[in-house]
Every structure is written in structure tokens, then in C-alpha cells.
């Protein structure tokens, strides 16, 4: 089961498109009506709003202007589908094998200006809801620093429990180790960090990390008129290699090494 998100960025319209069909035929996929829910965390519970029912084979789009007025200004909004009607509050978000397809069951999150649009084809998988002592480590942040271009890093964290905890992110230069930016990130939040003023050099490239927070980072770059936009996510270091029975334990060791050796001051 996947969760999706609806970030609010400047005056851009945001649209999430989700489908009630799998990207590939799947033997155990049960074709049935789904209910779309919009949720946010109060810090104590997950508040749920039923949005619409969607029949098998159909597509639904949720725009930022469609959000229920009861959702407080500035709350981070998450969206999911489920085949059953759910109560108005949940003490925890849950997992379900319904959307476990290969390739992944995606949603399309689109930012639209008056003249163009960009989208991110992705999801927040339920297996990321309960990662104990999670960290974030990105060696290829897509931070664009050309003249007249700025990048926002949108880092999404969702945990099954609604509590909102604060962690820290860092951006440093990989070769010199210099920390060039740091800030706070929160759980159950769409965290947005402005990268204005940074330089990303090939001789000393940037690295983005958090010692105490898991997040799905996406990179939104734009010109001030919003006539030109770019959006893509990065991926974790386990995608730097494939095959080998000891791949995952070794990658865990490598992550630990980096998390110890990167600077935090």
C-alpha cells in the first residue's frame, strides 16, 4: 500500500493523480472499488477525510483547491486508497499488500504554473512508515545553482504514529566536509528547504543527509517566472549496486560509515 502527498509550493497548483489499476497485470491483485482518503496529523491522531470512491480501471485527480476546508492552513496533506470505509480518525496509519506490484504502483504528483507543469511519478511505500532509527543519505542531490535558477528540496516523512518529532538535515561539501546548510525536518510533514545561494561544484559536490530522519527527497528547480520547471527524486545508495547475497548488510555498513564520518557542525 502506498501513500501519496500534496505539497504546497508558492502559488503553484498541485495535483495528485492516482489510478485504481495496477501498472502490470498481477495475479493476486483484487480488482475492487477503492475509497480515497485525505489525511493529516494533528500530532496526536490522524484525521481522515473521505474524498471519493473510485471504480476499478478508473483514474482520480485531487487538486490542492479540492482539499477539505477543515484542514488547517499549513498542514501537510497525505492521500491513500483503501477498499474499506474508515473512521474519521486513526491512531496509526497502516500497511496493506494491496499495491505491492513490480514495478511500483505510482501516483503522479504535478506542480502547475500558468504556462507549464512538472511531475513526479512516485509514492511513499508503507514499508517506510516504521523504520527504526532511520537516516537519510543522498550523494546525488539534484540541486541546480545556475544563474537565475533555484532549487527547493521537498523531503517527505510519514510514520505510522501521528506524533510530530523534529530532526535535522545537513548539506555539506563531500570532499572538504564543509557544512553549507542545516535546518530542521519534522516527521509526518512535507518539509521544504530552500537551497538558494549554494554552489554545487564537480570538484566538491554536495551531499544531503540527516542523522535522525528518514525522508523521501524530491528536488524542485525553477526560474522566478515559473515558466521553466524541473522535478525529480534522488535515490538511496542501495541503488548504486545490484546482485550479491551480502549486498544489503554491506550497504548498511557503508551507510553507518558515512553517517559517522560526515560533519554535523
Amino acid at each position, binding site marked *: 500500500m502506498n501513500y501519496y502527498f500534496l505539497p504546497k509550493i508558492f502559488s503553484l497548483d498541485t495535483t495528485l493523480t492516482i489510478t485504481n*489499476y495496477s501498472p502490470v497485470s498481477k495475479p493476486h491483485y483484487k480488482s475492487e472499488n477503492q475509497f480515497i482518503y485525505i489525511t493529516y496529523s494533528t500530532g496526536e491522531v490522524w484525521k481522515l477525510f473521505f474524498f471519493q470512491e473510485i471504480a476499478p480501471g478508473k483514474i482520480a485527480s485531487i487538486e490542492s483547491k479540492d482539499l477539505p476546508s477543515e484542514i488547517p492552513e499549513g498542514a501537510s496533506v497525505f492521500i491513500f486508497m483503501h477498499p474499506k470505509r474508515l473512521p474519521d480518525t486513526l491512531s496509526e496509519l497502516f500497511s496493506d499488500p494491496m499495491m505491492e506490484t513490480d514495478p511500483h504502483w505510482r501516483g503522479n504528483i504535478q506542480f502547475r504554473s500558468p504556462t507549464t507543469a512538472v511531475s513526479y511519478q512516485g509514492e511513499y511505500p508503507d514499508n517506510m512508515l516504521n523504520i527504526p532509527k532511520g537516516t537519510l543519505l543522498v550523494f546525488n542531490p539534484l540541486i*541546480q545553482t545556475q544563474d537565475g535558477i533555484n532549487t527547493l528540496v521537498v523531503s517527505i516523512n510519514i510514520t505510522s504514529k501521528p506524533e510530530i518529532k523534529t530532526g535535522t538535515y545537513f548539506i555539506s561539501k563531500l570532499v572538504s566536509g564543509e557544512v553549507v546548510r542545516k535546518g530542521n525536518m519534522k516527521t509526518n510533514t512535507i518539509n521544504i528547504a530552500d537551497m538558494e545561494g549554494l554552489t554545487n561544484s564537480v570538484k566538491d559536490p554536495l551531499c544531503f543527509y540527516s542523522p535522525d530522519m528518514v525522508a523521501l527527497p524530491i528536488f524542485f528547480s525553477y526560474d522566478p517566472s515559473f*515558466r521553466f*520547471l524541473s522535478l525529480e527524486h534522488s535515490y538511496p545508495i542501495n541503488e548504486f549496486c545490484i546482485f550479491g547475497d551480502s549486498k544489503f548488510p554491506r550497504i548498511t555498513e557503508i551507510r553507518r560509515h558515512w553517517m559517522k564520518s560526515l560533519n554535523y557542525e
Partner: protein
Amino acid sequence: MSKLKKLINKIANTAPGIMLRNSLGWKAKVYIEMPLHYSISDLFFWCCDDNWNTRFDLINLPSILSPQKNLEDVVTILFYNQKGEELIRKKIVIPPLQSHVVYVDQIVGENAGFGTMAFFHEKKESKESEEFSCITEHGFVAYRRLSDETPLWSYVHGSAFVLAKPPGIDKPQTVRRSISQSLTYRPQVVMSDCSRFDLIYINPMAEKQQIVVRALNGSGEEVEKIKRVIPERGAERFSFDNENRAIWRIENDSSIFNWRPVIKKYYESHFDVFHG
């Protein structure tokens, strides 16, 4: 795991077992496992002409995966044309922890057009017994339309592992297995918000492959169907005029698992590029 389960697992992973799984489409095994000192790359789409340029951002992967060894990264760059014929082969060395940007216009020169490219990262010396996994290049590639008055690049990552290169040997081989059944892939995205879009497919297999692309309207009815054969390591671009917004979604049939297109949507002032 019980003895019976172990035995079934063992048989299922023999060559005849994999062949049977792939012909039945049951727990198909779509990758050929390579020796761990081989380097693996996706095949990426490049496009470079009077109106487009492409860049590829490389980082020194060996120095990140072996952080105590301060390794240089020897990267073999391979370019293929649209037909999958090798165009250019080049080697570069990236110092430890540094990155490198490949600008495609500086590589392809007079071979303007479009095609595919791969990037193989290798340590100067690599022994199978010392490696825990195959180093893999999975992206990022970025595109810029030269008529756009902006230095912005539009990024997209790779979609699937395709080629493996043994150390010291120039010819890469595919890591993909075909499946004897027709598979439908349905990108979970709506196309009706733009008046024009391209779908780009790269053939990851060692033989030419047929693909059928269908465009569907809002009721799921077929409004256009295109059948083409794409040569091995080649690329094909399917362009759709959607001025009347008749096309809502697309799907493709092939015998390749997870044959995802790169999607380019065109809007009034700019374009969007992502994996379907």
C-alpha cells in the same frame, strides 16, 4: 526454510527452471545475475540536435561504496545511435568523491540525433572475490531545449538495469531475460493535460523487440495503435498530437518485463520529462 522448499527453490533457479518460469510468466526471473566484479549500467536516452542537448551527471561510485580506499573511478562511456549501433566509446577518470558532467553535444559531434548511452564504473583493479555487489549506474540524465531562454536542466533517472561490462573487456552484454508471454505495461499517468507528448522506448534486450503502443481515451477505448520493431540497444520515439485532448492514457504490449517509456509532455512555455 523446509527441505522441500529449499529443493524447489534450487530447481526453480536452474537454467531450465528459469526458462519454465519465464515461459509461464510465473515468478519470472528477468535479470541474469552477473559476476560481482562486472559493472552494470542502465541504457539512457540521449537527444542532441539543433534544438536539444543532453547531459549526464556522474559521481565517483567506487569511492562512495569503498569510503576508506580513496578510489579513482574509471568510467567507460558508450554511445549508440537510434539503431543501436555503437557510435562512440570513451574513458574518463573521476577523482575520489568528485563528480563529472558529460555534455552530449561535446561527445557526439556530427552524429546529431538521438540514441542510447551507458556508463560503466570500474576500479583500476577489481577482483571478483573482493566485491560484494556489481557497481551500477542508474542515472541522472537531464535534457534542455536550446530555444528555451533558461539554463535549467530537466532531470530524470534510469528505469532498469540493462548492460553489464566485464573488467578489461570492451563489449557489454545484456542483463535482461525475455519472457515468452505478452506483457502489458500501463503508466499510471494522465496525458490529457497537454497537447503534445512523446513516448521514448529503449530496447534493453540482445535481440530486436516488437512493441505495440496504444493510446486510450477517457473511456478506455483505443484511439490510436502503433506497432514498431526496435533494434537491440536502439531507441524509438513515438510522438502524439493531442490537440483535441482525446488521449487520456497509454499502454504498451511487449515480451519485456517493465518496459517503461520515458515520457516527455510539452506545455506552452516548457516541457516535463519523467519515467512512466
